[in-house]
């Protein structure tokens, strides 16, 4: 990628034209991104934040127009800049450039013939009709909305299946289609690994790990969390697998989910086993039997995300022996154990991401019997208002916490409150937090929690004990929030950060194990 700059001295172009020039410049062949803005100091700072300042830009004055283009390698940047400059030349006003306003999906689909996807995030009570309208108009659907009945979901997915369309969701938080991240998605490299995911943050985790291990994602198809239930029967998971099998851009197929209903698991494994491409199944917390059945059908099965990601990148041709796979940091574990008192023996996980919570919890359950969660049923269930008990893992993204409030990835106030409560408990050894980067997420997720993190550290110090805070930042260096920036904020506050969701669960579990047990 090359960044090229041109400064037009004392050039004044009205704002509407600037906007339209910017849009057209972005659409030029070989242009990844193009910016047109006045050369004011503050705008230069914005560019500095994007790593785009050079001498020319530094010398621009507020009356100058800055043109910046990020072009693909091999593209002649000067020719591209010439093309952008051509756009500055005034042409007669034309009426048909006016953007149409559409009120309904059917209108939009009819008005813009190339429309191929509807992204639906209106309240669940209205979302079903919108999704039907989209499918009826021949559009694939990404349905972020939740609170949709099983019957409605089934009707939508059957309709989509019959029409050969994708029906991602309801309650589908993430997808990457043709390199474009939808709703909550991380900015990952394009590549040859296709993912079908029934769990949102689980799919994001795989995509981020694949990116970290130098692999790339061709497509990430979400199905919504209920797809692998008995009632829905995995309709979209199966269609997704078939789509990736047929997709010439995909070499490896990965599925990720909590353990499916048994009959559905068979169907999914059968479908994967029948693929001509290498396949990987990541069923979080899956029993050894399920993994054995996968192996029997020629599918590599895993119950953790990280090994699944490693298997996928290996299958796509990456030589992982050359990579830092971030094996568990035992010296760190010893160091933390030494700082904790005997009394500090419990993990408290306060999560935004459901699958991240699941993974850490399943790993704790492998070693501990007293693990409580709002995600568990029966005697180990904790309600939204219940105090934490022993090892506790809470998913603040689930309905009982979000009811009426934005998701904690956007509005963290509930989670911060709970965090400060946990800090005061002398039995707590480690508090586990996750921070999600990417599209749709808070612009500075660590930053908004930083005062609380510092306060917690100070309080524990006052109380004469060490408080271990373990955090996981789910993101890539391409995400708009800046991965390094987020991690350095954590480090600055004395927070330990883990390199993957799997490592987060393992570290937390090991930190609180006592040498005598």
């Amino acid at each position, binding site marked *: 990628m090359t960044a090229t700059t041109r400064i037009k001295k*004392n050039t*004044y*172009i*009205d*704002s*509407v034209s*600037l*906007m339209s020039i*910017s*849009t057209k410049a*972005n659409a030029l062949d070989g242009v990844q*991104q*193009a*910016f*047109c*803005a*006045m050369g*004011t*100091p*503050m*705008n230069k*700072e*914005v*560019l500095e*934040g*994007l790593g785009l300042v050079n001498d020319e830009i530094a010398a621009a004055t*507020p*009356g100058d127009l800055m043109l*910046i283009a990020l072009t693909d390698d091999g593209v002649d940047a000067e020719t591209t800049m010439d093309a952008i400059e051509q756009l500055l030349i*005034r042409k007669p*006003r034309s009426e048909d450039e006016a953007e149409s306003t559409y009120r309904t999906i059917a209108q939009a689909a009819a008005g813009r013939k190339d429309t191929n996807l509807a992204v639906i995030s209106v309240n669940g009570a209205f979302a079903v009709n919108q999704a039907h309208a989209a499918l009826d108009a021949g559009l694939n659907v990404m349905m972020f909305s939740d609170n949709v009945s099983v019957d409605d979901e089934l009707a939508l997915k059957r309709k989509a299946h019959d029409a050969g369309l994708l029906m991602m969701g309801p309650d589908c938080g993430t997808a990457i289609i043709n390199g474009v991240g939808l709703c909550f998605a991380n900015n990952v490299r394009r590549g040859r690994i296709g993912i079908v995911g029934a769990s949102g943050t689980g799919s994001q985790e795989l995509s981020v790990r694949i990116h970290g291990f130098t692999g790339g994602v061709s497509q990430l198809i979400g199905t919504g969390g209920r797809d692998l239930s008995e009632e829905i029967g995995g309709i979209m998971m199966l269609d997704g697998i078939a789509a990736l099998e047929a997709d010439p851009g995909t070499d490896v197929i990965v599925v990720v989910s909590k353990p499916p209903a048994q009959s559905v698991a068979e169907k999914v494994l059968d479908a994967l086993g029948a693929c001509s491409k290498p396949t990987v199944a990541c069923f979080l917390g899956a029993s050894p039997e399920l993994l054995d059945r996968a192996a029997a059908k020629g599918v590599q099965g895993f119950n953790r995300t990280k090994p699944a990601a490693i298997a996928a990148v290996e299958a796509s041709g990456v030589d992982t022996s050359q990579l830092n796979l971030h094996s568990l940091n035992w010296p760190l574990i010893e160091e933390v154990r030494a700082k904790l008192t005997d009394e500090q023996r419990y993990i408290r996980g306060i999560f935004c991401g459901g699958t991240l919570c699941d993974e850490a919890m399943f790993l704790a359950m492998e070693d501990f019997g007293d693990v409580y969660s709002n995600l568990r049923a029966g005697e180990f269930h904790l309600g939204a208002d219940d105090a934490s008990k022993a090892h506790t893992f809470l998913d603040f993204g689930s309905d009982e916490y979000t009811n009426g409030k934005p998701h904690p990835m956007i509005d963290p106030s509930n989670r911060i409150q709970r965090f400060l409560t946990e800090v005061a408990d002398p039995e707590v050894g480690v508090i586990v937090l996750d921070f999600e980067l990417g599209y749709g997420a808070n*612009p500075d997720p660590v930053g908004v929690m930083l005062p609380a993190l510092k306060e917690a550290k100070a309080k524990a110090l006052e109380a004469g004990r060490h408080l271990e805070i373990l955090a996981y930042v789910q993101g890539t260096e391409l995400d*708009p929030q800046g991965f390094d920036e987020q991690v350095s904020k954590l480090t600055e506050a004395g927070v330990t950060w883990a390199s993957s969701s799997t490592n987060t669960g393992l570290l937390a579990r090991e930190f609180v194990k006592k040498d005598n047990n």
Partner: protein
Amino acid sequence: MTTLRVLTASRDFRGWAATRADAVVHSVFDRSINLSSDGRLWTLATRDVPAAPATAVLDLDDAHSLGLVPGDGFDLARLGDVEAVWEPVRPTGPANPHTVATVSALSAHLRPTTTGFDRAAQIRIDWLTADFRRAIATHDVPAAEAAAAGLLGLGPGLTPSGDDYLAGYALASRHFGKPDAAELIGRVVAAHAAERTNEISRCMLEHAVAGIAAHPLHHLLVTLTGDDRTAAEAAARDVIVIGHHSGHDLVSGVLAALEPTEGSR
């Protein structure tokens, strides 16, 4: 050379034009021409442009039809007598909170979409405007000045978004009994605008600090004092259509000045 009819002009334009012989063309757009004279800009606008400070509206369809390019001289004798002097309407009472709430909802609804650079800038603008409002609400003058200085020249557009926001804020403050906020913005503009933003934007800010802006903004302020929400919405739409982001940013500034205690989003 034929005389150009001046349909309306602001009082300051008429005064200026009467005492000068010529000026230099600073910039040319489809619907306006800016003239530069002693460090200030004066605008010749086409018929469909609303009246505004330092502006003359001419009997003209297309500003390019005069064939002027930046750097040309312009003989002010080409302008005919000013046929009508524009007097900005001014609100005579406090803003009606219900009407403000209606416009606020409309404004949120019409927020322009942003991409690329604009989006990166928008994140900063959101933070700085929140800082600015918080500082004003807590009478933290140094913090307010710092935030305002940060907004100068920030963001997309010919008049960058941050400037539009400040202009809206200053204008509404001036007309709704908060001269201190307008003065504060005025100080920041006087101290920094010359280096931090372009001349067109600086002139807009100076006028706004003095309580004058384009006619649609004055009309909006007046409708905000009444209880006719439809009229206020229509007035807000007339402002929002200015520029690409500009109108929306101006309205945001006006609304922020009217709701100083609302927290950041």
